[in-house]
């Protein structure tokens, strides 16, 4: 339902590209996360989707209708794309009701629609309050209600949890995505926190230096990342070329990596190597054991303490990623 085809954007007349030849398609009702580091092009991409910027080239279509191309440009107010800003962008001089009703264009059922969406976000009774009279979480819900009120085809959430406390974040994140699921709206959730992305989306799009490097289901992107960069976005990975060369042979263009959480100590696994214990740290539910393996230092979570100075580090064949060396 949302198609992006060969879209590029440069802010310095082609010397460098904020987005370089991006193409993808999103399906109706699904949740997508857009992840990438700062400067990867996430913000530029969503501004292009909303019509707040124009691309240098490429076509964007919504519901089979072209909204951006060389010759067509549908202005933001005429696209049915909602956006929840990182800073919420609530209108400070308008009440909750006035904020939410602002984007509703139908004349007859405005009040009902406001009640409906405020119900959805659990803020009934807050209609007369002003943004400054609400907590951070409540402001977030108003921003969501306001974006949902005009019933957009696509809803974009731009790092909506970055201003919230860690304790509040997980709870609010799950609640908000439950609410959005009920509306059957396509969601693009922009985040640099891959745990959030894994928790709430059906598929993840990874942007790196303005290029879309992988678009896959959450499970596939975790289990079969296309390269070491993507693998490392979802947790620490270590390279074990020496350990695995007996199985795979010496193959210079390839490197073999394993996620930190898949490493085991003194267990029966496919691959084993000797390690020197450098440090042990009690972390509550586990011990963080710091090891020296060859030239690299590795930290492994282990359920119990290990008294010896040396141990065996191992992992199974099934958890090994092989990537082309970059």
């Amino acid at each position, binding site marked *: 339902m949302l198609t992006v085809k060969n879209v590029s954007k440069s802010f310095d007349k082609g010397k460098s590209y904020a987005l370089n030849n991006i193409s993808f398609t999103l399906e109706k009702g699904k949740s997508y996360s857009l992840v990438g580091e700062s400067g990867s092009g996430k913000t530029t991409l969503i501004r292009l989707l*909303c019509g*707040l910027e124009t691309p240098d080239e490429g076509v964007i279509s919504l519901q089979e209708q072209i909204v951006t191309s060389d010759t067509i440009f549908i*202005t*933001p*107010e005429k696209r049915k794309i909602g*956006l929840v*800003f990182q800073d919420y962008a609530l*209108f400070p001089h308008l009440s909750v009701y006035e904020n939410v009703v*602002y984007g509703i264009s139908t004349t007859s059922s405005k009040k009902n629609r406001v009640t409906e969406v405020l119900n959805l976000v659990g803020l009934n009774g807050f209609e007369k309050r002003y943004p400054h009279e609400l907590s951070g979480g409540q402001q977030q819900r108003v921003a969501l209600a306001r974006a949902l009120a005009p019933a957009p085809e696509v809803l974009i959430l731009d790092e909506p949890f970055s201003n919230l406390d860690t304790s509040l974040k997980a709870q609010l994140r799950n609640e908000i995505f439950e609410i959005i699921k009920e509306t059957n709206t396509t969601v693009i959730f922009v985040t640099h926190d891959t745990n959030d992305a894994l928790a709430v989306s059906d598929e993840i799009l990874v942007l790196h230096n303005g290029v879309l490097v992988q678009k896959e289901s959450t499970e596939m992107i975790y289990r079969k990342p296309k390269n070491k960069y993507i693998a490392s976005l979802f947790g620490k990975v270590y390279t074990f070329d020496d350990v695995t060369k007996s199985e795979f042979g010496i193959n210079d263009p390839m490197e073999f990596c394993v996620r930190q959480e898949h490493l085991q100590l003194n267990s029966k696994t496919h691959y084993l190597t000797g390690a020197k214990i450098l440090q042990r740290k009690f972390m509550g539910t586990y011990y963080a054991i710091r090891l020296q393996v060859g030239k690299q230092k590795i930290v492994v979570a282990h359920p119990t303490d290990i008294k010896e100075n040396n141990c065996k580090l191992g992992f199974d064949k099934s958890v090994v990623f092989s990537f082309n060396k970059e």
Partner: protein
Amino acid sequence: MWSALTLTIVGLIALPILTIAVKLYNGPGESWKHLVDTVLSDYISNSLLLIIGTTILTLLFGVSSAWVVSRYDFRFRKQLEWLLILPLAIPSYIIAYAYAGMFDYGGTIEKVTFGVFPKFDVMNITGLIWVLSISLYPYVYVAARTFFLNQSGRLFEASKVLGVGELKALKKLIIPLARPAIIGGLVLVLMEVLNDYGAAKYYGVSTFTTGIFRAWFSLEEPETAIYLSALLVAVIFILLGLERWQRNKIGYAINSKTQVPLIRLIPGRKNKIIIYLIVGIPVFFGFLIPLIQLIYWALLTYETVLNDGFLSTAIQSFLIAVLAAIFTVIFALALIYFTKWNRLRLLDYITKIGTLGYAIPGAVIAIGVLIPTLGFDKWLISYVSEHFQTKIGFFINGTILVLVYAYTVRFMAVAHNPIEAVCLKVNKSMSESSKILGQSALKTFFKIELPLIKTGVFGGLVLVFVDVMKELPLTLILKPYQVQTLAVKAYEYASDEQIMEAALPSLLIIATGVLPVILLNKLINR
């Protein structure tokens, strides 16, 4: 569409300046050579002397008083802080009248001292330097004080922990860092000095501005007036260029987020006397003395001055100022938002021309406005007479339309700058959010942006209103015969040797000027 509208507004604002530039090609008038041989050197030397003299005095008064109120805590500091800004509320020509009257034969000084202190001639270039400095130093004071209060706290702390004393820190650190801000204030002073007509004319000092009037009215040679205007504009552009150059030369920025307020010291007894002298002299001579003199004269003359004619002048003045303020603010808003909405980035630079008017002296703008509007009026009269066989009078000239247009050109920057400053504070995501929610640019402006920038809009309205109330040279040239303003009335009284009668209209102008000065002070303290 927005691009076309932006260009139209910029075109209208730039028209007077372009007119002067184009007319220069016609060559100077017959008396230009005579002027060059005789008085031009006076214009240049007097203007230079004025620039040098007012620079020294305004820096002395402005910087020293700003430092003292920022660094020390003493009795009546808060009251003195805003009293120091108040001379800004009195137009220079009114302070000039007050001083002239005070030191004249039989003037207040002679009476108060029972003749011990006789006539003292202030009506010369030294007197003019004093009058202009004592009325304009608040521009430097405000700029320096804003810097000292907001930017110097952390720097001072850093310097203290390095064991550096107060005076050395001031000399090596604070003053050099405050220099761009102080020079910014000084340039405003000098633009006002070069714009002045009333005080220089009254004191008999020939400057560029008085020369323009002379060429226009006495010699009846617009070409010569245009040549003088062009020279004056060139001087101002050199000043502005120097200011821009010194600002661009700086390769650093002070991190304002990490700044802390400057902690005020309690001065010792000896220092207290010096402090009271530093803040007392400018307040006393720049505000209290002229004000008391004017009140005294007003009490002597109110019975003759206060009549129906005076009331009508006050109402006309007020209405013209309101109208001009509204027009200027609408144009400023249009310029800011049309530029925002158009997609041509080049226009961002072109719109800067729209705010140039404040740098151009009123007399020059008046001439630049008069020439094209007269041309338009003449064309309109002949067009109507040819096509409709009807005779009409001047449409723009001879009505207040010409005044409102000229005020808009002159004071565009006065409205534009505070509004733009507030606009920049409104988060971009506000308007983007409104657009994504389906609202047009215009609806977004009226429903979201305007309510959020209303303080800036109000500030702009008040500032333009006050500037129009005070304005003299432009009004003198352009005002239709039947229209009268308080500033012109005061000038006419003073020119007719009825200096005491000038007090009441002057006091009314001051009263309207005090309000925004207080507003300005509140904004700085925020």
